[in-house]
C-alpha cells in the first residue's frame, strides 16, 4: 500500500519535471488535433509542413502492428518489402502475443493486431465498448505440427484420439506403450507452447475439445526454439508447434502424420500441399490480421493491407507458412475492398 503510494508520487514527480522541461523557454504556438496515431501524423494532418531544413523523408507515415509472434515473420517480411517500394511509410511490428496485442488494439493504440486465433468474445466486447470497429482478415494458414525425434522409428502416424488421450487434462499416459502396445515401454517427454500462446489455445480446442484444456505435466515454453531443442535432443520426446518451426528444423525433427479418424491409414503429414488443400485436419488453422476500421481512412494503411494480400502472399511461403486457398483469398480481398470503400 505504502509502496504503491510512493511509486505514484515518484511518477507525478517525473511527469511534472518533464512538463516543466518541455515548456520552459518556449511558447505554445498551436495545438493541432491528432487524427492518426503516428507521432508525425499530426504535422501532416495539421498541414504545417514548412519546417526549416526539410529532409526528403519528412511527412513520414507510420503503420503500427502488434500481436502474435507466430504471425510476426509474415508481417515483418511484408513490412520489409513494402517499405522498399514505399519509402515514405514505415511499418513497425511488435510481438506481444495474440492476447497481449489485443489489449493494445482494443485501446486504439495499434492499427493492426496479428492473431493466431480468432478474436475472443471478451476482446470483441471491449472493442465495442471503446467504439472500435474491426475487420478480420485471413492472411495465411498454419499447420500445427506434431513432432518427434528423428531416431523415433515406431511412431509412423498418430490419431486425434491418441493425441487427446495423451494431452487431455488429467491424462494418465506416461509411456509410449500406453498409446499403442507395439510402441516401446519408455516414458514420453512432452513439449508444448505455454498457455499465453494462440497455438496452445487452438491445439487444446481441436484436440481436447475445450480451449485451454491441457495436461500440465509437460515442458512449456513461449520460445518455440526451446521446444525444437527439447524434442531434437531426446529420443522419446514428443511436442507440437507451428509449421514454420518444423520446416526450418526439418533435419532435426520428424513430423508425425495425424489421422482425424481412428484408422492410421488416413493419416496426413503436414506439408504445404496438404495444409493448403485442407487435407491436414484438424490441425490446420488460419492466421489473422485484425484491422482498426476507422484507421483505414489513412491511405498508407489501406495500401499496406492491399499489398499484404497481393505481393505479401508470395512471402507467406518464404517464411514457412502456407498461402490462402483461392476462394478464401478472393473473399478476404473483397472484404478489404469493401471496408476501404466505407
Amino acid at each position, binding site marked *: 500500500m*505504502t*509502496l504503491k503510494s*510512493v*511509486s505514484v508520487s*515518484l*511518477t507525478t514527480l*517525473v*511527469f511534472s*519535471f*518533464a512538463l516543466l522541461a518541455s*515548456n520552459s523557454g*518556449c*511558447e*505554445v*504556438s*498551436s*495545438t*493541432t488535433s*491528432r487524427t492518426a*496515431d503516428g*507521432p*508525425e501524423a*499530426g*504535422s501532416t494532418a*495539421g498541414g*504545417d509542413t514548412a*519546417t*526549416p*531544413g*526539410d*529532409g526528403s*523523408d*519528412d511527412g*513520414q507515415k*507510420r503503420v*503500427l502492428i*502488434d500481436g502474435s*509472434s507466430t504471425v*510476426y*515473420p509474415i508481417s*515483418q*517480411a511484408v513490412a*520489409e518489402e513494402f*517499405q522498399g517500394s514505399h519509402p515514405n511509410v*514505415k511499418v*513497425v511490428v*511488435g*510481438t506481444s502475443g495474440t492476447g497481449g496485442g489485443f489489449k*493494445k488494439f482494443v*485501446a*486504439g*493504440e495499434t492499427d493492426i493486431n496479428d492473431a493466431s486465433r480468432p478474436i475472443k468474445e471478451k476482446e470483441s466486447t471491449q472493442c465495442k465498448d471503446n*467504439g*472500435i470497429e474491426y475487420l478480420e482478415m485471413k492472411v495465411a494458414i498454419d499447420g500445427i505440427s506434431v513432432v518427434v525425434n528423428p531416431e523415433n522409428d515406431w511412431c509412423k502416424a498418430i490419431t486425434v484420439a491418441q493425441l487427446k488421450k495423451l494431452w487431455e487434462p488429467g491424462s494418465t499416459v506416461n509411456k509410449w506403450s500406453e498409446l499403442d502396445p507395439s510402441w516401446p515401454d519408455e516414458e514420453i517427454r512432452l513439449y508444448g507452447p505455454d498457455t499465453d500462446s494462440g497455438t496452445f489455445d487452438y491445439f487444446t480446442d481441436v484436440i481436447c475439445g475445450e480451449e485451454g484444456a491441457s495436461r500440465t505435466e509437460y515442458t512449456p515454453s513461449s*520460445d518455440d526454439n526451446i521446444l525444437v531443442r527439447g524434442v531434437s535432443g531426446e529420443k522419446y520426446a514428443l511436442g507440437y508447434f507451428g509449421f514454420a*518451426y518444423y520446416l*526450418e*528444423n526439418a533435419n532435426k525433427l520428424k513430423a508425425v502424420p495425424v489421422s482425424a479418424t481412428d484408422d492410421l491409414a488416413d493419416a496426413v503429414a503436414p506439408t504445404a500441399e496438404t495444409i493448403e488443400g485442407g487435407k491436414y485436419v484438424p490441425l490446420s488453422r488460419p492466421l489473422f490480421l485484425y484491422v482498426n476500421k*476507422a484507421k483505414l481512412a489513412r491511405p498508407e494503411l489501406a495500401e499496406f493491407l492491399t499489398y499484404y494480400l497481393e505481393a505479401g502472399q508470395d512471402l507467406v511461403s518464404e517464411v*514457412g507458412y502456407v498461402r490462402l486457398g483461392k476462394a478464401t483469398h478472393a473473399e478476404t480481398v473483397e472484404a478489404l475492398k469493401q471496408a476501404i470503400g466505407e
Partner: protein
Amino acid sequence: MSDQQIEYAAILKRRHRISTCFEWVCRIATGSALLFLAVLLAGVIWQAWGWLDTQFLTGFDSRRPGKAGLLAGLWGTSWLIFFTAIFTVPMGVGAAVYLEEYATDNRFTRLIKLNLSNLAGVPSIVYGMLGVTAFVRMFGMISAADGWTLAVSLGIGTLEIPLPLGRCLLAGSFTLSLLILPVVIIASQEALRAVPPSIRHASYALGATEWQTIRHQVLPAAVPGIATGIILALSRAMGETAPLIVVGAMSYVAFAPGNLDTPMAAVQDPQRVLDAPFDVFTSITIQITNWIEQPKEEFQNLAAAGSLVLLILLVIFNATAIVIRNRAQKKISW
C-alpha cells in the same frame, strides 16, 4: 618441549591449516566465477564470429539474417539511456541530498527510506505496467482515439508532443528512470553519509551556509560514490527488456527514432532531433530477444553478435565513467 608447547604447536598448525583452507575456498569461488564468465564469453564470441561486421552495425533489421542489422536498436538504446540519465541524475541526487542533508529524522522520512529500499527490489516488469498507465496512457485522461498534439515552436523546428504520450521513446525513458531512481537515491545517500560530519562542521564554523557547504564540500567529496551508483544503475537500465516490451517497444523497427540514423543528420535537419523522443522505438535488448525467438537458425548468431555489442558498449560506458570518477577523486584535497 613441555606438554604445553607441544599442544600449542599442534593448535598453531591447525589454525594455519584452516587459514590456508579458507584461502583456497575463496580462490575456488573466484576461479569458478571467472570460469563461468569465460565460458559464457567464449560461447557468445564463438557464435557471433563472422556476424559482427559493418553491415550488422549499420543496417536495419531484416528477415534475411545476412542483411539484418542492429542500427535501430543502437540508436534506440542510446536515446533511451540519454534521456534516462537526464531525468534520473538530478532527481536521484536531489532526493538523496534532501534526505541526507536537510530532512529531519522523523517517521515520515523513515517511511520514505524504507520504501526506497523496497522499491529497489520490485521486479522491473511492474515498472513497465506503471509506465503504461502513467506515461503511455496518462491515466486514461485522454483516450488514444482522440489524442492531441501539443506543438511548441523552437528556433530550429517544432517540438510536437503527442498527448497521451503513446508508445514513444520518452515513455520508455520515463519508465527506466522510475526503475533505477531508488537505486540511484540509495547509492547517493550512502555516498553522502560517508562524508565525515567534521567536514560539515568545519564549513559551518567558517560561516558557510547549508548551500555553500553542500555545494563546495559535501557534494564534491561524495561524487565518486554517487557516480558509481549512477553508472551501475544506468548499466542495469541498458540491459532491461521486460519493462520496455510492456511500455510498447517494437520488435521490428527499420528506422532510427526520428529517422536520425547518422550523427550528421542532426546538424543538417535538427527537426529530426526534436522528433526522436516521440517516435516509436526498439532497443538492443529487444532486438536480441526477438532474434532468439526466430525460427531460422542464423538468427541465433545475430543474437550473439547483438549481445557482444551490448557487452562492449557496457565496458566502454563503465570505463569512461571510472575515468571521470577517478578524476573527481583526485580533486578532493583534505
